[in-house]
């Protein structure tokens, strides 16, 4: 976390901000099975919707600020704690720590704006648009496979990959961050449903395995 003084910005509103799945915190703690599958809601993050042609001059300028832009489906670019997820040939989602937000002392959005300038494209603050679920553990993939039609086997979906898809019929960006860890980015209004859906899918792993 950044320094507290900065986080108290936005006229003190930061203190009363509630994350979309905060009411499920206790349920997620109870539903997680240590060593098997863990579900948590991640911290607030700065998210920026980016639309720019990556092959253009402005694309190169924006890439320099963001770290890099992924060039193909599944790619994740970025640098220094900033991830740039591929959403389309000219559409990206920038995910950065909360303190990168301009209202909290950072300059991510402002510098992306400056890099794009008057060129065709879009830089939009989407920090409140999606929340983050962090799913990890040996059974994480099995949980996702109950409601996702993609091939999640590591040969097709290695760490450092992010894909637009549906999990439990909810549109999410699904990012694989490690061998057994995933981040799911659902829109805020779907967080409750998806959180409960994941908990339901995890439930069987709390019981002893039937031989």
């Amino acid at each position: 976390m950044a320094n507290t003084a900065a986080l108290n910005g936005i006229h003190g509103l930061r203190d009363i901000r509630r994350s979309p799945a905060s009411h499920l915190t206790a349920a997620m703690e109870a539903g997680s099975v240590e060593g098997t599958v863990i579900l948590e809601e991640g911290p607030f993050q700065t998210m920026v919707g980016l639309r720019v042609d990556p092959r253009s001059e402005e694309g190169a300028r924006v890439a320099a600020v963001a770290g890099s832009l992924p060039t193909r489906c599944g790619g994740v670019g970025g640098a220094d704690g900033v991830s740039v997820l591929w959403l389309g040939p000219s559409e990206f989602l920038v995910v950065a720590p909360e303190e990168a937000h301009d209202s909290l002392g950072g300059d991510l959005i402002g510098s992306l704006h400056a890099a794009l300038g008057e060129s065709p494209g879009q830089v939009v603050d989407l920090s409140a648009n999606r929340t983050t679920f962090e799913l990890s553990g040996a059974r994480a993939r099995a949980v996702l496979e109950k409601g996702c039609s993609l091939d999640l086997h590591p040969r097709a979906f290695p760490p450092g990959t992010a894909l637009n898809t549906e999990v439990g019929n909810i549109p999410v960006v699904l990012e694989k961050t490690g061998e057994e860890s995933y981040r799911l980015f659902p829109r805020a209004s779907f967080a409750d449903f998806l959180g409960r859906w994941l908990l339901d899918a995890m439930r069987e792993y709390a019981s002893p395995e039937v031989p």
Partner: protein
Amino acid sequence: MLLISCPNCGSRDETEFHYGGQAHVPYPENPNELNDREWAEFLFYRDNTKGAFAERWLHSTGCRQWFNMLRDTVTYEIQAVYPMGTARPDAAAAAPDSGTASTAPDSTTTGTTAPDISGTSTTPASTPAPEGATT
């Protein structure tokens, strides 16, 4: 369930896509000059082809990009996937290797506008599912 090869994302389930109707229906050059019947025909009248049919598709839960597809309305065989704004490919040329719906388009459609998705291990396109592997 159809397995559709998005030019950007590779093979994905049909449920990720939205159908956009018949392709190659141009907006009238001068709509003001149309009478009501011609305008209605532009808006509502579409071919009802039995066989190869050119249609528009949107990968709505994926890359959100439109593309055209040549599909047989009887067998559901996907004969070609090609970018918006390009002419309808010759069905006879695209069909002969009569591959599965999942493999034929991949080799023909990655134009200059789409990132090259062949040869990467991160997309499903590089590991086409065997026929019948769809659920």
